[in-house]
C-alpha cells in the first residue's frame, strides 16, 4: 500500500547559544493511510519535536533539520494547515480566548474549504455535534473560558478536523484531563478516526493509553527510536531493556499492590550531552562495556525492530 507518510532519517536540533541540542536523531518510519501510530517517550525524548516536524510546524529560526518527510499517498507533499490536523495537550492555550468557538472553527472552514461565512458557521455546528457537544448551535457563541477542560478538547478536536485532514496528530490530548474525561476523549478520538478514515499519530508518555488506541508503537529515548513494532507485542513482550523497564514500572488498577514498585534508576541524559554509545546504557540493567563505546545498531526491519546492541549481535550471529 502507498504510505500516507514516510519519514526518512529525520533529525532536528535546537540552537542553544553556540551549540546545537539534538532533539530528534535520524528517525525513520512509514505510516499507511488510516493507520495509528503511538509515539511514546518521556519528557525530552524528542516525541513532540518529531510530531511537530511531521506536521511542518517547527519554527525556522534556531532549528537545524535534515532528512525528509514525504506524503506518497498525497502526491508527495501535504498542504499546509489542511492535510494534517493537530491537537495539543492544553486546549486553553491552543484556542483563541477572544474569539467564540463558532468563529474559530468557521474561520478554518472559510480558509481551507472555501465556504461562505454562513455555510462555515453551519459546518461549525455540525462539527461540534460530531464531537459530542450538547446543543451545538448554542455553543457557537461560547468562548473557550466558558467551557470545561473536556469540552475545550472537544472543540480543539472539531477545529483540527474542520479542514478534512488525512492525518490527525494528538500530542498528549488527555494528559490535562481527569480519568473520566480522559476516557471520553479517547473514545471520541477512536470513533472520529474510524468514521472519517483518519490516520492517527498519538504522542504520549502513557503506555496504557497508547496500547488502547494505536496499532503501532514507537518508543523514543534521547531522540532515538528505541523500539518500533506492533504495540500489542511491545507491551506483552518488550524487547528493549528500556521498554521492559517501563512495562515493569507500569501500574494496573486490577493488580494488587506489591511491597516495592519496580523502579528505573537514574534520569535521562541531559540534552546536548555527548553520548558515544547507547543513551540508555547508564540506566540499563543489561549494559556491557560495548554499550558505552559504540552506538547500538538497528536490529530488525524498518517497521519492527530494536535499537539495542544485544539484538544487533544476536542478528549478526544468525546472519
Amino acid at each position: 500500500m502507498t504510505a500516507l507518510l514516510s519519514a526518512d532519517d529525520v533529525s532536528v536540533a535546537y540552537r542553544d547559544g553556540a551549540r546545537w541540542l539534538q532533539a530528534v536523531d535520524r528517525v525513520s518510519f512509514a505510516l499507511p493511510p488510516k493507520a495509528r501510530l503511538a509515539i511514546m517517550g518521556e519528557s525530552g525524548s524528542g516525541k513532540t519535536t518529531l510530531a511537530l516536524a511531521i506536521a511542518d510546524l517547527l519554527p525556522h529560526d534556531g532549528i537545524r533539520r535534515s532528512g525528509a518527510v514525504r506524503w506518497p499517498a498525497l502526491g508527495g507533499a501535504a498542504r499546509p494547515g489542511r492535510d494534517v490536523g493537530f491537537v495539543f495537550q492544553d486546549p486553553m492555550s491552543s484556542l483563541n480566548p477572544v474569539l467564540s468557538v463558532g468563529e474559530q472553527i468557521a474561520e478554518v472552514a472559510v480558509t481551507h474549504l472555501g465556504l461562505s461565512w454562513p455555510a462555515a458557521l453551519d459546518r461549525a455546528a455540525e462539527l461540534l455535534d460530531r464531537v459530542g457537544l450538547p446543543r451545538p448551535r448554542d455553543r457557537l457563541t461560547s468562548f473557550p473560558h466558558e467551557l470545561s477542560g473536556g469540552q475545550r478538547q472537544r472543540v480543539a478536536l472539531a477545529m483540527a478536523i474542520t479542514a478534512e485532514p488525512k492525518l490527525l496528530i494528538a500530542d498528549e490530548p488527555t494528559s490535562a484531563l481527569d480519568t473520566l474525561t480522559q476516557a471520553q476523549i479517547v473514545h471520541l478520538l477512536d470513533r472520529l478516526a474510524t468514521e472519517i478514515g483518519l490516520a492517527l499519530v498519538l504522542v504520549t508518555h502513557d503506555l496504557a493509553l497508547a496500547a488502547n488506541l494505536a496499532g503501532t508503537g514507537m518508543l523514543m529515548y534521547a531522540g532515538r527510536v528505541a523500539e518500533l513494532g506492533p504495540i500489542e507485542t511491545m507491551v506483552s513482550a518488550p524487547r528493549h531493556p528500556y521498554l521492559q523497564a517501563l512495562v515493569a514500572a507500569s501500574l494496573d488498577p486490577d493488580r494488587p499492590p506489591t511491597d516495592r514498585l519496580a523502579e528505573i534508576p537514574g534520569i535521562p541524559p541531559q540534552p546536548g550531552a555527548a553520548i558515544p554509545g547507547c543513551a540508555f546504557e547508564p540506566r540499563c540493567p543489561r549494559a556491557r562495556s560495548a554499550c558505552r563505546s559504540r552506538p547500538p545498531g538497528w536490529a530488525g526491519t524498518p517497521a519492527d525492530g530494536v535499537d539495542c546492541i544485544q539484538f544487533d549481535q544476536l542478528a549478526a550471529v544468525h546472519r
Partner: protein
Amino acid sequence: MSAPLLAVSGLVKAFGAGSRRVVALDGVDLEINAGETLALVGPSGSGKTTLARLILRLIEPDGGRIVFAGTDLLSCRGEALRRMRARFQMVFQDPLSALNPLAAVQRLLADPLRIHGGKTTATIDADVASLLELVRLSPELAGRHPHELSGGQRQRVNIARALASGPELLVLDEPVSALDISVRAQILNLLRDIQRSRGLAYLFISHDMAVVRAVADRVAVMDHGRIVEQGSVEAVFTQPAHDQTRALIAATPRLRRAG
C-alpha cells in the same frame, strides 16, 4: 483503637453567592490514622482540592469540624495555629511552580527548617544535608536552582521542604501525575520508605486509580462535594459499591486488554 490523627466531620464549603453559589463540599466526614495512606479520589470538580485546602487551613469552612491530634483546628489562632501548621504540610502536583525560581535548593530547604523546624544557623547546613539524604538527593544539588533540576529531582525537593518541619501528615495533591513513568516509581517508593521510617500519614489526592491501588491503605471516593464510598483499598477495588467508583476504575487505561 486509638483516636485518629485527623478527624473531619460535617465539613461544608460554598463559593460565590446568590445564583452563582456553588457548594464545593456538602457535609464531608473523614478520618486519617497515624501512619496510613488515605487516597482521596474523584473527577475534577468533585471537591478533592477544596477539602485539602480546608484541612491545611488555607481557606475557612462554612461549617463542620476539623480535629488534628485531639486539637480543634478551626479554633486555633495566631501562634497556636502557626505551631499546628508545622504538623501538616502539602506537596503540590507541579514541582516547578511550587518552588521559588530564584532560590537555590539550600535556601529552599533552610527556610522551612528555620521557620517551622526550629533549627538555627549553626546546624542548618547539616540539617539541609540530612534532608537531602532523606529524599536521596546528592548533596552537590544544594547549590542548584529549580530550573537546573529534573522533574523528579524537583519533586524530591518539594517533599524535603514539606518534611522540614517534622510533620505527622502530608497532603499530597497529585504528587506524581506530572512525572514521567520512569521517575514515578522512584518517588512512590521514596514516599513509602519515608512513611515507614517516620510514621507519617498521607492524604494522597489523585484521579489515577492505578496509582491509588499501588499506594493506598484506604480509599475515599468523592463526587459532587460528598464522600460517596470509603473503605480499604482491597474492598474498594474488588467490590466497588458506588457507580462513581466503578466508573473511575473502568475508565483507567490498562496496558493489556482484558482476556
